[in-house]
């Protein structure tokens, strides 16, 4: 047993550290009863931000990664949690749908990244993909959650 309890940091501390490290980033603090604080970042800043959360604040819990075809690119939302939600929000342009993987920092991210790779066609650099995850073995290679994918079969 390495440790019994993990240190819990105050949200304000994390918020201040993130603001200091990423001055260009845009913060969206929600006042809804259930919600995360969103932190809008450039794609290349996601990995440093995750590293900061892990190294400085010991936040490993990545609830999931949401991939969303927003119309002007594919949005990736990394939902972290430690008594409160912190979501790292980034937009990948269609011309360059690539982002480094987080699986070497958080092995638990593998399923989420594989799902997005399959459903939205985002390449996670360095991610091991042993075959398809949800789609059939003989799938035609299109991305079902993209806006331009054929809707007829979904109805």
């Amino acid at each position, binding site marked *: *047993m*390495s*440790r*019994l*309890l*993990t240190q819990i940091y105050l949200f304000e501390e994390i918020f201040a550290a993130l603001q200091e490290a990423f001055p260009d980033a845009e913060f969206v603090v*929600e006042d*809804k*009863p*259930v*919600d*995360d604080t*969103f932190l809008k970042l450039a794609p290349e800043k996601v990995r440093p931000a995750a590293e900061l959360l892990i190294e400085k604040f010991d936040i*490993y*819990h*990545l*609830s*999931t990664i*949401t*991939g*969303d*075809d927003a119309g002007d690119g594919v949005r990736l*939302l990394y*939902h972290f*949690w430690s*008594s*409160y*939600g912190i*979501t790292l929000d980034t937009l990948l342009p269609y011309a360059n749908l690539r982002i480094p993987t987080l699986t070497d920092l*958080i*092995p*638990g*991210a*593998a*399923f*989420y990244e594989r799902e997005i790779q399959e459903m939205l066609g985002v390449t996670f650099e360095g991610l091991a993909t*042993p*075959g*398809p*995850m*949800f*789609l*059939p073995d003989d799938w035609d290679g299109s991305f*079902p*959650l993209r806006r331009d994918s054929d*809707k007829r079969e*979904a*109805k």
Partner: protein
Amino acid sequence: MSKITVPIGPQHPLLKEPLAFSLTLEGEHVIESAMRLGYVHRGIERLSQERTYVQNVHLFERVCGICSHIHTTTYCQGVEALLGLEVPPRGLYLRALLCELERIHSHLLWLGVQARNIGFDTIFMYAWRDREIVLDIMEDLSGGRVSHAVNIIGGVRIDLTPEHRDVILGQLDTLETQIETLLDVVENERSFQARTRNIGCLSLEQIRRYCVVGPVARASGLDMDLRRDAPTPPYDRLKFRVPVRYEGDAWARTMVRMLETVESVHLCRQILTTLPDGPTSVRAKRRVPPGEVVSRAEAPRGEVIYYIRSDGSDKPARVKVRTPTLTNLITLPDQLQNISMADVSVVLSGVDLCIACADR
């Protein structure tokens, strides 16, 4: 020694739902394992973009066949936040009552499956007999044994009379006595321990790196429960303990789940005795203002998370669902490493697999 490969699934008596494993054995021991998901992928996330918010309540009820209520709760909670709706306290209490009943139902069902897999059929019979009490309560409340269709956006569609409440309180007393018996067997019975102790061990470090949630995480010492750590009403007003164990094996998972079941019975009783008066729901608009929300809740298997984005129409622009089983599945290759072939069934059922949830 020569190696052999044993396929388990997609159709196998051990698994209640389709999931494929390929185990490489050296003698009696598993040295490598590979997993394939997707046999019950229904494209629910994509389908939800074609349905209205109201229709989606019924769609998300069908993500899982066991914890159907918690999925609609998480979804409705998110949509209500987007609408800025305040659900009446009575509605929230009834919602939580169903959540706790569902937790008891899920854990008793799981105990039966686990006992069956280790060959302890007596416990299987008793656990599933006692589960009938919960199913009866839920049927009386909602009309459905498994799919309750209780949640609507803005509250719940059911209500409770004082007489009905007293009947449920009586049923809960019976249930508690039965659960105490089951807990005693799990804790003290030698044959049960022989099959579950030191099997499928996960350390706290592994749990944290794999982002594991729910009873599997709590059996390895990760003290995390969203009902307590990020409470949504009425959990902020209820008193309960979160059982945590540190062994990290299949036995600890059984203990955590059984202790949680006892806590859930206490919670149900608290909810029923402190049930506030008033309406159970408020009217909700059909169109949802633009915005996005992240909604989390503690399902029987751990954290459920819904991300909902609205573009101002009556259909959601994107709904992302992450079920607890998907996170817990990722630990299976580590758990299966170097165990005997005979223990594979204990490990597989130990994480409480719900494949339809994971595939969506």
